[in-house]
């Protein structure tokens, strides 16, 4: 009787979930094909066109509506996300590796690291900018202060992912390598790293996406040159045209391709992980 009730409830729930997850994107996607340049950001669609996509790349004749000022911001955000990803992942792997051995104060260090993702972003951003301006006396830039704020924010995520991965990692393969006369450094490169690589990929994905659309920290810490989320927000406060929707579709497609790359790399290493699992089954 329970399950009779449960099924429709679950179905509705899933439908609502999907609606809220993809609904905004679908609406955005449809509206991005609005007629230009007179068509506005609302239904009905006057006439289907790819005008706003061409507008985005500067392929339309000049009109009243200025092109989105996102070119440089996009480049900045990609660079920043990449820098953050590399730094946070390297730090995350190293810190998680350090936590494999119990050391004095491990508990405190753990919470200090994790604090980076708990503290409200606005506070971190504000604090970073105050620190830079008034205490240290450096100029705020996306590649200095904002970069530091992003690393402080994403490092805990990378750290936790790697901690979970290393927790399940069987250290005896490392010991086997050492006992064959292979140095710990080479063992890490040739044995440990290849085996934890799926985890490293996940940590990288986390760090990249979190940094790419980070807003509150960047708002205060980035100084004069804006990152993409800030630039987009800036255009909202003036006037909204469907070119923003077209841009949204483009960035979403970009995210999907990022996920696809991740999926492919993951698939390759999962095939290897399956081998490990099989090995464990037999032994």
């Amino acid at each position, binding site marked *: 009787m329970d399950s009779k009730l449960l099924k429709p409830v679950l179905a509705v729930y899933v439908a609502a979930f999907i609606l809220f997850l993809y609904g905004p994107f679908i609406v955005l996607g449809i509206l991005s094909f609005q007629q230009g340049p007179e068509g506005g950001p609302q239904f009905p669609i006057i006439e289907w066109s790819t005008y706003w996509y061409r507008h985005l790349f500067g392929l339309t004749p000049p009109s009243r509506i200025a092109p989105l000022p996102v070119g440089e911001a996009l480049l900045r955000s990609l660079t920043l996300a990449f820098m953050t990803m590399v730094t946070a992942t390297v730090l995350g792997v190293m810190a998680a590796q350090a936590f494999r051995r119990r050391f004095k104060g491990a508990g405190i260090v753990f919470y200090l690291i994790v604090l980076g993702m708990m503290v409200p972003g606005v506070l971190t951003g504000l604090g970073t900018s105050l620190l830079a301006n008034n205490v240290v006396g450096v100029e705020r830039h996306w590649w200095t202060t904002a970069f530091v704020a992003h690393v402080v924010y994403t490092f805990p995520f990378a750290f936790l992912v790697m901690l979970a991965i290393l927790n399940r990692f069987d250290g005896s393969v490392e010991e086997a390598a*050492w006992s064959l006369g292979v140095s710990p450094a080479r063992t890490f490169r040739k044995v440990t790293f290849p085996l934890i690589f799926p985890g490293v990929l996940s940590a990288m994905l986390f760090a990249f996406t979190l940094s790419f659309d980070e807003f509150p920290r960047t708002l205060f810490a980035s100084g004069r040159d804006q990152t993409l989320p800030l630039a987009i927000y800036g255009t909202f406060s003036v006037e909204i045209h469907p070119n923003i929707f077209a841009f949204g579709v483009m960035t979403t497609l970009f995210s999907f391709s990022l996920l696809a790359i991740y999926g492919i790399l993951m698939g390759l290493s999962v095939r290897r992980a399956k081998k490990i699992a099989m090995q*464990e089954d037999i032994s």
Partner: protein
Amino acid sequence: MAYDLQLKNVGKVYDNGTPAVIDFNLDVEKGEFIAFLGPSGCGKSTTLRMISGFESVTTGDLLIRGQRVNDQPPEKRPTSMIFQNYALFPHMNVRQNVRFGLEVKGLPRDEADRKVDGILDKLGLLDISEMPTGRLSGGQRQRIALARSLVVEPDILLLDEPLGALDANLRKSIQNELKLLQRELGITFVFVTHAQSEALALSDRIIVMNAGRIEQISPPRELYTRPQSAFVARFIGSNTIIPGTVVTTAGQTITLDTPFGAISGTNRIDIAHTKGERMSIVLPAEAVELIPGETDESELRGRFGSNVIPCKIERLQVIGHIMQMLVRLENGDTINTEGHVDKYRGRLTVGAPAYVAWLPGGATMIA
């Protein structure tokens, strides 16, 4: 003479305060096959991991070929370890696994190839040398682990329950292979197990451990015939231990006063003792004879002296050509014994009274 491996008063206390190994002393000669035998948690793996360098030595000295290695990291020691779960590198195929340790040795390419091929051939792995290790059988993976460790030519090979994950048949055949290989290569093997049969079949000397300490170091046979403590007597084979107080001593034969009267055994390890002291007799199952209750007791006493105890037969079980017998003494203790089927068949019935008897030479005294 220089020993291959020496442990001098070695002790290990883990960070959490667990004393895992206490005052461990052992000298191992080159080419010896040593087995650590003992119940779970007695410190076998810990000792092995100290020798390999994975665990630090808390107290005492560890010497390999005369050199103190307490502070040497594992990769600098001439030891190599085989793990129970094999610990093969899952992202490498068989050949890459075996070759991995050679890559840092700075050998010319073709020489390294020759060595890898040589060991793969010796262990019958050439046919599968390009396969990934994941889908191979337990026995094959065991051999890959062996090949990987042997190809770097260690002075000492350490094996931590290497056959634990294999089924009984495979275990037997790999045991034989292991013994042959060790003889042929002349490498010192230190082997950890909690299977008696394995230790008895393979090793030159067995180190019996209990609660972090060495109980006894003996060649396999002596462990049976000369247990030095009640622990070893209980752990090895199937012995009955009867405590009592010393009444008389005649040469090596000591007679004890026990709840079953005056009974005697041989003082093989020359334990100093005085009249009235408490000692025990260890009665191996093989030394005990079971005699039907109809037999005339005085005739028995003629043959066995005072070593005759009345009992009741509880269980008879034939396994192959061995009859296993369980009897209960008057005080409730039980004794296991066994003998050839032909000797006992038809003469014993479950529930009937009988006698257990033994010659003083068959029983050993312990303190």
